[in-house]
């Protein structure tokens, strides 16, 4: 068991050690400073911008940035719909998979567009290789979209008063060329060296040692998986996602994928501190996020290692822990670690089946997505956290009787309204969606895989995962129905774009305000006290509003255990 705990600690420490230099590098990239890779990337980017007729140095205000962001996203959506509805005759379809139905294509296109990857299909039968490659393209560009939106917020907090926040296309393209693409190639090479398939051939026949005939799905897996994690997308190449032995071959690939998905969310926080020249603030944010992560993660590891008491009561040895839905090569501790890492961050890839976890482990995964800002997704994680900072600044301002200020900018009614709308949208979408689904058993009852409280948790999980743009699921849910495809589709759109528009708007408004130099009366935002304050706001706003729903699901299930 010791090598397993050691494995987890090494994963976490390695992620931190790699994210520090990466964060410094990212701050330089976004600040248009010189880096050692300029000779390679400068000509490449010049070519890309020239071909697309874009001037990357044209300053844009926050409204222009958002318009650019939304328009290019809309184009990707239409393209995605077209490809998914026509994949049967498009090239690269050796297994002759059929077209998706309109409601399924809508859900698939949206969920990849918003960096969620809910996947109401199975990779082996639901998409062609051509569609897989387009979805892979979306995994690159949607991650970069989130990062570019975060960079707009970075720009707003440079010292002084600014009307503009840099250029969307510049930050967007550089996120791909200088960060996502090179790291993906390195990860791809590691995966190939560890026997991950990279081929365009279709299913292969295999006669087993015992004499059964079976067909084995393979594909360009080693290209798909790196960006799936690095961009915190999480959409699996195969139905079983990273539990599949060709998608996640051994413990080394498991560590690689785990580190890849946490890397940019970590680095983004450090890049923020570096960019605005307040490194201590970066560390404070990271520490609060880490406390939140560990509070959810450690209990899951312990609960899963203890095993399912119902099964232990049958005389089964609990030494391996709760093994339903888990793979022997990962073991329970690193599976449980993954279950929280993938839910605090909006990856949503899985290396074990979340539905089969112990009830309170399932609750922790739900809480991780309900807070949605402990690290969080590529770029958007720090945006979500930023909203809570604004709220905490306001609350603490009221408590001590000072004008609320953050980094030299006064926070006033308009910004507060936007922050509150964004913060309350998340519980609204999750709770209203689940309530509707529970009130319409004609649409949903037959789709549940488990009876009782666990069935309720399946529905709650589906909407939470959609609203957090996470993409994991209690996968027993038969979610490829018009109800689930369309209702979660709309939750996905709202929960992606409003939490991007809100923080960027706040940042734009703050940026244009007069800069007030720090004085003795300024509320310090890089202290442990303020970190605690933000944490408290997150717990009160995010976690407590979900308590009644959690009581009906995992908590009731826990107390009902035999």
């Amino acid at each position, binding site marked *: 068991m010791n*090598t397993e705990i050691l494995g987890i600690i090494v994963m976490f420490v390695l992620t931190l050690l790699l994210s520090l230099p990466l964060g410094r590098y990212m701050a330089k990239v976004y600040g248009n400073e010189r880096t050692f890779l300029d000779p390679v990337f400068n000509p490449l980017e010049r070519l890309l911008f020239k071909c697309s007729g874009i001037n990357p140095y044209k300053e844009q205000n926050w409204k222009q940035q958002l318009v650019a962001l939304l328009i290019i996203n809309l184009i990707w959506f239409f393209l995605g719909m077209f490809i998914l509805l026509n994949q049967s005759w498009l090239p690269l379809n050796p297994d002759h998979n059929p077209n998706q139905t309109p409601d399924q294509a809508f859900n698939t296109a949206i969920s990849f567009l918003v960096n969620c990857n809910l996947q109401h299909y199975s990779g082996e039968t639901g998409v062609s290789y051509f569609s897989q490659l387009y979805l892979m393209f979306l995994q690159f560009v949607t991650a970069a979209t989130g990062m570019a939106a975060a960079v707009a917020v970075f720009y707003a907090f440079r010292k002084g008063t600014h009307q503009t926040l840099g250029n969307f296309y510049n930050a967007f393209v550089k996120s791909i060329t200088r960060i996502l693409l090179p790291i993906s190639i390195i990860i791809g090479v590691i995966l190939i060296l560890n026997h991950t398939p990279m*081929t365009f051939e279709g299913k292969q026949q295999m006669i087993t040692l015992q004499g059964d005939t079976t067909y084995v799905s393979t594909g360009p897996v080693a290209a798909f998986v790196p960006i799936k994690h690095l961009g915190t997308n999480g959409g699996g190449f195969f139905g079983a996602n990273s539990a599949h032995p060709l998608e996640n071959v051994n413990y080394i690939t498991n560590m690689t994928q785990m580190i890849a998905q946490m890397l940019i969310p970590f680095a983004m926080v450090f890049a923020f501190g570096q960019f605005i020249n307040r490194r201590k603030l970066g560390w404070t944010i990271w520490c609060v996020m880490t406390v939140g992560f560990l509070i959810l993660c450690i209990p899951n590891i312990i609960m899963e290692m203890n095993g399912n008491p119902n099964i232990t009561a049958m005389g089964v040895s609990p030494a391996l822990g709760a093994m339903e839905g888990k793979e022997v090569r990962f073991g329970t501790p690193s599976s449980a670690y993954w279950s929280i890492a993938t839910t605090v961050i909006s990856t949503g890839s899985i290396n074990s089946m979340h539905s*089969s976890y112990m009830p309170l482990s399932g609750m922790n995964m739900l809480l991780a997505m309900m807070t949605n800002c402990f690290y969080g997704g590529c770029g958007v994680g720090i945006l979500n956290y930023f909203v809570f900072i604004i709220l905490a600044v306001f609350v603490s301002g009221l408590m001590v009787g000072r004008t609320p200020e953050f980094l030299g900018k006064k926070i006033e009614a308009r910004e507060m309204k936007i922050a509150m709308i964004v913060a309350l949208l998340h519980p609204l979408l999750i709770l209203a969606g689940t309530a509707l689904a529970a009130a319409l058993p004609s649409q949903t009852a037959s789709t549940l895989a488990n009876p009782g409280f666990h069935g309720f948790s399946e529905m709650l999980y589906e909407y939470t995962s959609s609203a957090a743009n996470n993409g994991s699921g209690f996968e027993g849910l038969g979610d490829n129905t018009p109800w689930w495809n369309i209702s979660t589709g709309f939750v996905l759109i709202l929960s992606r774009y409003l939490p991007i528009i809100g923080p960027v708007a706040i940042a734009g408004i703050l940026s244009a305000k007069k800069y007030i130099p720090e004085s003795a009366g300024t509320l310090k935002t890089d202290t442990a006290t303020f970190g605690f304050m933000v944490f408290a706001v997150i717990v009160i706003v995010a976690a407590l509003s979900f308590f009644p729903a959690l009581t009906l699901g995992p908590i009731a299930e826990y107390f009902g255990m035999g």
Partner: protein
Amino acid sequence: MKQHILPAIRLTLVLMILCVGIYSLLLSGFARLTPEKGHGEKITDGNGRSYYANIGQRFDTAIYFNSRPSAVAYNAAGSGGSNKGPNNPEYLKEVQQRVEDFKQKNPGTLIPADMVTASGSGLDPDISVAAANAQVVRIAAARKLSQQAVQQLVNKSIDRPFFGPQKINVLKLNIGLDQLSH
């Protein structure tokens, strides 16, 4: 508004060339250089037939080390777990049945959790060391081999990675077992 549409379409096209075309070609090219040419690891048995080393196979006869229960019956053109909740009464009945079956086949041994629960992928290529040890007596009797010889094979097959759990690839173990019997 309008000045964004055309650049966005053009940027999408050039980025597709970069992120799909060049990126996939680079990795495909690298995969071609490896001994397995990007097809995944294969192993060959004594009769020269080759298998995917990492795709679990159904082994349920007495003469082979059995693999884990699978929610997709080891159909490698699909994948997935049972997704049953830990308190689902029907599921627990199923596990109880597996426990009885395992006890009947391997009387008097410890029952390891991996042998009565389905894996996440349904294609788990491995079993735990405890799961292999629990089947040694049965295998030795069914194959008319000494327990010691079978136990030695098990011990030899244990994969001890630097990080993570110890495990045994069932296919490799069973190929070794066939060779031992010859």
